[in-house]
Each structure stands twice: as C-alpha cells, then as structure tokens.
C-alpha cells in the first residue's frame, strides 16, 4: 500500500483590533444586554497594537519563526514577555494587519457586496501593493466610494467595517428578507473566504507549488454559506480555489466543529491514496465571532484581550514522493456513536484503539498534537491548559495500560507533548497547527511518528449532544514509494492461460 504524503503547509494570522469590538460575539452580545457595562467602557484600553501582536511568542510559533519548544521554558503570562522575533513574515506564512485584510475582503467579494471608502482604499492599496503575494490584486481593486455612500448603506442594513475606530467600508446584505444573506452573515463568510485565500496563497508560494496542480480542495472552518433554501449549501472550498487560480480544482466543505480539520486531513489522504485525486488541499479561514471570546476575563485580570487574531491554515496532501512524511491511513482513530463520553472512553478510542489494531504502544508515538489552544488565553479565563489536560489523560491511559510507571507521567507530558500556541478560533487549534513542524521533524528532524488528534463538541448545533473526535498517525517516509505488487504480470498471464485451458477442456467435454 502506498501512503499519501504531507507535501506542505501555509499558516496565517490576521490582527483585527476593530473587529474584536464590532464583530466578536462576546462584545456584540454585551452591547445588546448591557450597553452601559464597565467592560465596554474599558475594552479600548486592552486592545493590543499590531506591533505587540507580532511580538507575541505564540503568534511567532504559529507562522514558524519560533518552535513549540521555545514556549516550554517561558514564564507565564506570555503577553508581556515579548518574542524572540517580531517579524510579520515567517517560514509558514504571516501575521497580516487589519487594513490590508479589509482589502482582501474586497478581493474575495464576487457579488459587489463590499463597499470601501475611497481614501482608505487608495492609502491601503499602496501598502498591499508591496505584499509579495498581493501586488496584482491590489492593482486590480476598483476605486472606493464616498464616505456618505457608506454611511447611508450602514443605515440601511449593511454591516460596518472599521479601521482605527473609523468607518472605512461596509458589507451590504444580499437579500431583503433572507436571514442567511444578511450583511452580518456575509461579513463572517467573506472573512472566512479572504483569510482562507491568504493561507492558501502562502501554501503555494512558500512551497513553490504550481497552483494548477491542485485537483481538489476541502474547506473545514465552522461557518456556513447558503441562502434560505440551503443554509449550509457551500461551497467555500471552490470559491477559495477560484480566487487563488486553482483552475483544475473542484472542492467541497467538510464540517465537524473543532474536529473538522482532522476529518478533512483523513478525507484528503484517503482521496489521494485511492487515486481519485493527486493533490488535495485542505484549507480553513478564521472566525470573527470568536474574537475576544474570553475578553471579559482578560480585562478583569488586567491582561490585554489576547483573542485579537483570526487564524487560517492550508496544507497539501499528495502522492507518495519517497521524501515527505506519510499519512498512515491504516492507523486512524475515531470516536464512534457508541464510544460514550467519559474522558477514558474518548482517549481510548482516539489514541489507544488505532495503535492496538496495529500492534503499537502509546509510547511508540513520539509526539501528540492535540487541541493546541494557547494556554495564555484559556488559563486566565478559567478554562485551564487544554493541551496539558489532554497530555495528562494520554499519560494516565499509558499508566493504566501498564506501558509506564505513574512516576513517569511528568516526563511523558514533556517529551510527547507541547505547549499550545494556537488562537482559540474553534477549528484552528485542532491538531493541524503542528503539521508544519511535523513535516520538518519527520524529515530533517529526529522524530519518526506523530499523532494528530482533533476533538469537537457537537451539542452547540443542537442536533446531538454526542462528543466527536478523530485521529491519524503521520510517519517518517521509508523512501519506498510503491510496494511490490504481490502478483506479477507474468503470474497474471499464467493464471489467465490456466483458466482458459480449463474452460476449453470443459467445453470439449460438453
């Protein structure tokens, strides 16, 4: 069996300070239920500048300028400690500022729904024109509109777009009565599309891929696009493929809350291994709704609002090239309907069961990438350290299975785990932020086998209260791209000849 490989990654963060206040649901809800609240009065003092967002260690890890190991020794909170580097661009992608991203939203807009102010457009067009991946898009942007036009549209159901506290544009609604085509929904969907395009472009550019070689795209964020007759009809994937010039690609959307990226990874690997497609890209954009989700707790603790970036990623799965790490589609775990919800049952089904089926031990996995939420964000909000909790559970399962002593749990967590660095954007932390490092660790590095685990809570959609999760192992490539077929051509010829002879003898007898 020839396994598919992880060919490359692209990661992007977008710093969106104004969108925290105007589009994050914690803030928009507060404006409705408690408009005079102290939180809304002081929130402006807790929003970081772009330079501070760059100079934040977890963000630099996300784009590949720092390694997950660099976070291990850093004293928390990380927010005031700075980073080793405060670069905008990194090995895997970039951290884009809000003004340029607003032009990306216009670029992503296929239905003239985004209207930007004239002066803002021209000023930012020059800035975006210097971007290595967006020079053409910047030049092609249409002229902006007068501010008065935008003010009138905002007064008539359009969703405002702010930059530096000023109105600079809006997203119009696309229908008078359809709640699925309101300006708010279209705003969120255009953000997903635009940030997905950004990560996709980085994937193609940094790896030197030819975008026309992409056969299929799977989008796996948490938004839904469609109208009142098909709320989640889709297809973000194809709309992103179109904008990046993937003219030979089709695509579709995969949903599964926070677990969707790992579902998509397994699906992409299966499509390639089955020979349906040669190169499949998995992509996801970011969610404005989750900006400042834990903002109240951060403000209460005197911290800046740390959920100030949108997250996006893209990665490509392709045919075995004998070099890149292989996706072991035969070592995949799943939380089934019958699994149950106790932590023990969940970890057993995702981690131990697929390894047992392949005669492996938990300790045979060098590194686990679980939900890699940045603990600097979650701990002050009372949600604990999510990756650490997962590693503790995996370690405890190891002890229960007699694979190691209880006293070794601490070492196991350090050696087989990592500190989290991903923004709490739901699907973004789901195992896949490690793929970029995994590609290195399993080729030039010294690891041989890693497991990617995605987990999700389905109750939020009110269709089931089941838990969900899937996992898959990625392994160092043995260098053998095609295992010898068990039956040679010569043997097949002989078998057919034998069968023909038998048939002839049977006919003669008749």
């Amino acid at each position, binding site marked *: 069996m020839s396994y598919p490989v992880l060919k490359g990654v692209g990661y992007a963060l977008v710093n969106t300070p104004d969108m925290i206040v105007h589009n994050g649901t914690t803030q928009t809800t507060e404006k409705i239920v408690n408009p005079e609240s102290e939180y809304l009065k002081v929130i402006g003092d807790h929003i970081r500048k772009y330079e501070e967002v760059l100079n934040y260690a977890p963000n630099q890890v996300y784009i590949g300028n720092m390694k997950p190991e660099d976070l291990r020794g850093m004293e928390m909170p990380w927010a005031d400690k700075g980073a080793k580097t405060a670069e905008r661009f990194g090995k895997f992608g970039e951290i884009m500022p809000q003004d340029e991203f607003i032009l990306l939203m216009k670029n992503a807009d296929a239905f003239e729904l985004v209207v930007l102010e004239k002066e803002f457009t021209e000023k930012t067009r020059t800035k975006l024109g210097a971007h290595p991946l967006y020079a053409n898009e910047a030049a092609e942007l249409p002229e902006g509109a007068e501010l008065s036009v935008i003010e009138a549209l905002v007064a008539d159901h359009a969703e405002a777009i702010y930059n530096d506290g000023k109105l600079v544009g809006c997203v119009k609604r696309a229908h008078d009565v359809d709640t699925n085509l309101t300006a708010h929904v279209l705003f969120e969907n255009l953000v997903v599309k635009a940030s997905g395009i950004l990560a996709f472009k980085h994937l193609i550019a940094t790896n030197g891929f030819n975008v026309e070689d992409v056969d299929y795209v799977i989008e796996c964020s948490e938004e839904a696009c469609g109208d009142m007759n098909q709320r989640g009809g889709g297809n973000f994937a194809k709309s992103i493929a179109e904008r990046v010039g993937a003219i030979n690609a089709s695509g579709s959307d995969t949903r599964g809350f926070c677990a969707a990226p790992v579902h998509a990874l397994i699906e992409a690997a299966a499509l390639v291994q089955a020979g349906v497609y040669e190169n499949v890209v998995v992509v996801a954009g970011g969610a404005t709704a989750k900006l400042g989700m834990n903002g109240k707790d951060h403000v209460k603790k005197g911290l800046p609002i740390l959920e100030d970036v949108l997250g996006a990623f893209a990665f490509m799965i392709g045919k075995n090239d004998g070099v890149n790490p292989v996706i072991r589609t035969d070592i995949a775990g799943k939380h089934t309907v019958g699994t149950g919800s*106790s*932590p*023990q049952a969940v*970890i057993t089904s995702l981690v131990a069961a697929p390894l047992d089926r392949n005669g492996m031990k938990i300790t045979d996995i060098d590194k686990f990438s679980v939900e890699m939420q940045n603990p600097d964000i979650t701990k002050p909000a*009372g949600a*604990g350290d999510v990756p650490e*909790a997962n590693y*503790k*559970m995996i*370690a*405890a*399962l190891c*002890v*229960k299975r007699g694979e190691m002593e*209880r006293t070794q*749990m601490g070492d196991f967590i350090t050696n087989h785990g990592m500190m989290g660095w991903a923004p709490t954007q739901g699907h973004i932390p789901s195992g896949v932020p490690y793929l970029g490092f995994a590609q290195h660790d399993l080729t030039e590095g010294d690891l041989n086998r890693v497991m990617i685990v995605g987990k999700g809570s389905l109750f939020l959609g009110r269709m089931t209260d089941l838990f969900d999760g899937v996992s898959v192992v990625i392994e160092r490539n043995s260098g053998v791209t095609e295992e010898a077929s068990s039956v040679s051509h010569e043997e097949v010829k002989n078998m057919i000849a034998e069968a023909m002879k038998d048939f002839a003898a049977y006919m003669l007898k008749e």
Partner: protein
Amino acid sequence: MLVLLGAAEAEASGLAAETVTNGDPTYAGSLAGVSLGLRVYHVVEPEFKEAVNADVYEEQIGMMEMVLDVDGIIEEMKTIREQFCKF
C-alpha cells in the same frame, strides 16, 4: 438526596458546591440567595469512591483520578460542606 459533582478542578467544584448549599455565589441563576444546604460530593472524594463498585469506578473514573488535582478538590469540597451543609 445528595448532589454529585464531576468538575475538572477545585475552584469550579467549589462554585457548584456552594450553589447547592449556600446559594449561587454569582447571583446568576435561580438558586441566587436560596440556601438549600444539600449534601454535595465530588466523584473523586473517598466517600463516593468507597460507596460504589470498584470495577465500575476504575473503568469510568480511574483515569481522571490520575489526571485531576484530587487533594485540592477534596479540600475545597470539605470546606464548603463544613460551612453550609445542613444535613
């Protein structure tokens, strides 16, 4: 009647325990200012562990017992019970 908790850490356990004994400390829900004084235990406390089938306990909770800060939870639960439990 008793209330059984399964929260993942001491502070959250204490909050839930206080809610069903002294009343909701956050004044957010229907038990704000209502002191029920109920018996309340966390599943990792010895009182509960000794009362149930050891195999079932091991299967359902054994792993989490290794993961959670059991001593911290027990201490928090005891403090709440000593202060507010009426039974």
